[in-house]
């Protein structure tokens, strides 16, 4: 349910709809708590650094997606918002990758 539906949603017709959303919020909340415990538990395992980073970032991405999709209503958001975020994601990936690629680039270095 987004704010754009707010004008139409102040009626009792939508009360059941909101109740359904609240149930989803509670399920997401429980999932986030469980995943937090899993994140900490995994850090105690004797994993190699690349594996530990992969697992930790995977769990964080799942948690972040739950927050974005349900608490931030992205799952029912308009296409324009998705387009803005897609563009942001592209720039974000470039921002993170470019410096790393620059460092790992051996082009022009003798030997």
């Amino acid at each position: 349910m987004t704010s754009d539906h707010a004008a139409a949603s102040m009626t009792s017709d939508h009360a059941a709809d909101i109740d359904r959303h609240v149930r989803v919020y509670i399920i997401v909340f429980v999932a986030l708590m469980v995943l937090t415990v899993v994140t900490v538990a995994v850090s105690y395992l004797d994993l190699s650094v690349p594996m530990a980073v992969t697992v930790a970032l995977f769990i964080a991405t799942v948690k972040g997606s739950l927050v974005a999709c349900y608490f931030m209503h992205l799952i029912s958001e308009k296409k324009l918002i998705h387009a803005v975020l897609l563009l942001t994601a592209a720039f974000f990936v470039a921002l993170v990758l470019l410096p790393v690629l620059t460092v790992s680039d051996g082009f022009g270095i003798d030997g």
Partner: protein
Amino acid sequence: MDIPYTEEVRPDTGLTNGKIAIWLFLASEVMLFGALFASYILIRTGAESWPRGDTMLDVPLATFNTIVLITSSITMVMAWASLMRGRFGTFRIYMAATILLGFVFLTVKYFEYSHHLSLGEFPSTNNFLAVYYTMTGLHMLHVLGGMAVNAYFWGPGAKLWKTNPVWFTNRVEHSGLFWHFVDLVWIFLFPTLYLL
């Protein structure tokens, strides 16, 4: 002159102006934190050695703070849902809980910082601490900013509910989007700084 499209959606975008504005702002925030994460990766991968976060920082305290912030996200969304149901009293309770949980987060952070500073661990001590203080410091400022806006909607800003409940509900949703973003950033900060 009134701000246009605060309640009804713009026909061309299908959204209220406030909704677009907050998402564009959040997009800029992604780039702000993205720059810091990129710097962190660069500094860490370029270092000869780097300490594991749990050898330098207090994991149980940070886990507690993670739980606090996630809980504050659900109280925030419940505050908005309460307005959607027309229950202003319940909104106030959930919003107060959100602000209180933000305060708990900052209090824990205060003790965490105090402990490090008392040990002589400053941002200038090493790169790990420089990254830690910069990223968690900026995040803390966001928590503080979110709390200020939420406090406004809990207090003086709530007058709008009486005259224009739809606009007020939209404003609370936008404030919530920011608050959830702050939670989302912490979800990534917690494992990358404290656990790896």
